[in-house]
């Protein structure tokens, strides 16, 4: 008997260990995911900048001295930058070498200089020390993503270029800075100029449309179904529909968006309005289901008490039941919004995968969203995009965690009140 009992207890312990290791495993996966993404992405928050003493030659950029903005904005600032580079390395004379040298500066440098000059035209004719972005490969070398000891053919930077970089470092002209471009700029073909600003704006516009549509409609539908709907076939149909809609694969919603909103209604491709419409249809079931659960959990006594003092059904619901259910509904809405924020697949269907540089200003402008930008960058070959992808993921996750944490806190407080 005793032996048997021991065996049973051993089995009990084993089972418990299985459970524990299952939880541990899930948490380990989570940790692994976070560690690997943060490990890959944290470097993107810094960016290598190059200090150039630029002589803003009025001969080159404004030969007629008109100081006209139109002339200035189309002037060849690239040449000015090249002159500045040449000044640091006067010994480089071969054409090929020169090109290799100029490659160390990002193509964005001339635009930065241009903007600076446009803002302060009085600087023309002076020498201006200015930090410009270095090329993506230089950035990668500075961050150690390009191995110096690899053979010359195996790395994008040649030995000569590395020697120049070392010279620049020794002069204190190369330095890693906080990467503001990453947050402010739109997409770019150059990793050092690419940012998530455009995608972020696109995401916010899309979410705005989603929220504007799905929250009021979702709450109204939940209230109707939970409190006013007669028990009949039509109501049953609506209920079954909502439950099914909640589990329909997101990509099918994308097909809906393509066929209905773009081809039938003629809304523009790649626009946040279409994305928002599609996502709000996706979020609606979540909000309705959460809303109904939350309305159901309001004690019936409150509703009855309101009716008993002469309130109409509508008044009882609107004045007493709905306010009490609001935290629960908000929780559901936030979770739905978080899902919408992370959604990619349906947006691929409606043309939100395109190269879009401008930051969208309205819901009809072409734009991408954060997850789609991640998808696009994940497929880009330049090494700089790898870390930027991971960094964009970090930003996205930060948003999601904040949203989910808000939902959890709201739920906790809600539960605490009852």
């Amino acid at each position, binding site marked *: *008997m005793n032996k*048997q*009992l021991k065996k*049973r*207890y051993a089995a*009990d312990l084993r089972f418990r260990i299985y459970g524990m290791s299952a939880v541990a495993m899930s948490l380990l996966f989570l940790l692994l995911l976070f560690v690997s993404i943060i490990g890959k992405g944290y470097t993107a928050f810094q960016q290598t900048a190059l200090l150039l003493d630029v002589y803003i030659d009025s001969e080159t950029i404004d030969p007629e001295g008109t100081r006209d903005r139109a002339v200035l904005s189309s002037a060849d600032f690239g040449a000015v930058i090249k002159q500045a580079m040449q000044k640091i390395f006067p010994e480089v004379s071969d054409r090929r070498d020169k090109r290799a040298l100029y490659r160390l500066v990002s193509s964005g440098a001339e635009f930065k200089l241009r903007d600076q000059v446009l803002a302060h035209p009085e600087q023309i004719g002076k020498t201006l020390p200015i930090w410009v972005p270095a090329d993506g490969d230089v950035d990668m070398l500075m961050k150690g993503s390009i191995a110096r000891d690899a053979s010359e053919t195996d790395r994008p930077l040649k030995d000569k270029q590395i020697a120049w970089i070392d010279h620049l470092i020794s002069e204190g002209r190369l330095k890693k800075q906080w990467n503001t471009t990453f947050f402010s700029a739109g997409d770019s073909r150059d990793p050092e100029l690419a940012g998530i600003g455009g995608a972020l704006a696109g995401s916010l516009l899309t979410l705005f449309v989603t929220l504007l549509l799905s929250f009021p409609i979702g709450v109204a539908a939940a209230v109707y179904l939970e409190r006013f709907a007669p028990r009949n076939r039509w109501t049953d149909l609506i209920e079954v529909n909502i439950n099914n809609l909640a589990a329909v694969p997101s990509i099918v919603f994308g097909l809906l968006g393509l066929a209905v909103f773009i081809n039938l209604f003629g809304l523009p491709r790649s626009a946040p309005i279409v994305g928002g419409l599609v996502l709000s249809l996706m979020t609606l079931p979540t909000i309705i289901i959460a809303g109904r659960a939350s309305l159901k959990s309001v004690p019936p006594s409150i509703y009855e008490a309101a009716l008993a003092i002469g309130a109409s059904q509508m008044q009882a619901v609107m004045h007493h039941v709905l306010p009490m259910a609001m935290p629960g509904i908000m929780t559901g809405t936030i979770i739905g919004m978080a899902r919408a924020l992370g959604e990619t697949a349906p947006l691929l269907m409606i043309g939100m995968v395109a190269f879009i540089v401008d930051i969208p200003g309205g819901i009809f402008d072409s734009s991408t969203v954060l997850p789609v930008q991640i998808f696009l960058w994940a497929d880009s070959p330049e090494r700089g995009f790898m870390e930027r992808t991971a960094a964009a993921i970090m930003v996205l996750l930060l948003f999601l965690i904040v949203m989910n944490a808000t939902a959890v806190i709201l739920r906790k407080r809600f539960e605490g009140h009852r």
Partner: protein
Amino acid sequence: MKKEEHIMGKIEPAIPFPNSRFVHQQTLKRGRAIRSDQIAGQEIQETVGEIRLDDPRLSCRDVSVFYGDKQALRGINLDIGRHEVFAMIGPSGCGKSTFLRCFNRMNDTISNCRVTGTIMMDGRDINHNETDPVSLRVRVGMVFQKPNPFPKSIWENVAFGPRIHHLAKTKEGLHEIVVKSLQQAGLWDEVKDRLHQAGLGLSGGQQQRLCIARTIAIHPEVILMDEPCSALDPIATGKIEELINTLRKDYTICIVTHSMQQASRISDRTAYFHLGNLVEVGETKKIFINPLHPLTEDYITGRLG
């Protein structure tokens, strides 16, 4: 999340009861295991009636139960004899169910519940850390207020206990136990044709008898019944009472009941609990005809409760 507290309860084989050793030693140190009159500074009435028995099956000394900071039972002393039907009565919340659950350590499953004092079964402390709750529960079975058959077939319900305790070597042996238990529980004739149908398909009374059959299938020595008839109609109640009558020759039965009539019909001895105190114990007839304590009298005559 009130359920959580139940689930969260642990059976810890290594340290079956964290407080029991401490309490045990304390009781020993004090040298008298019979009664402490003052616990937590509250005035305690003395229990009226005959507490002690010769050769008791269960013997409780100074048993107190706490739920968190709340004390549910205050220093109960009581003996329960062999082959007797022992009834516990009292108003709601007086602690009788809690007391009952002490005998098979079901209180272990409630996380903030704490039991002090000693309960000896056949001379061994059931709260001692060498006593294993699992093997204790084999000896002390329990039937609950609401019938709770498992969502399995009738046969599986009865076979559950014998199977986990390896009481039968073969399937035939197991079947024999099932049949015998069902017969003993007086259910056999009603269910013999549908042994493999769901236990939940039976009527309430049948379900409760199924639970009793399930309990006696593992041959306990004591059966605890926690208001077994409260969810049943009078006919089903009558059947259960009949069953208790036939079981008394093999088992010690402790029954908690709200019905004084039931207690008077089936029990040998009765205990009256009031607000966590054991007020009076005695032979059932005596208690019901001639209660000694005024509280008992009030309750029995219906002035209280």
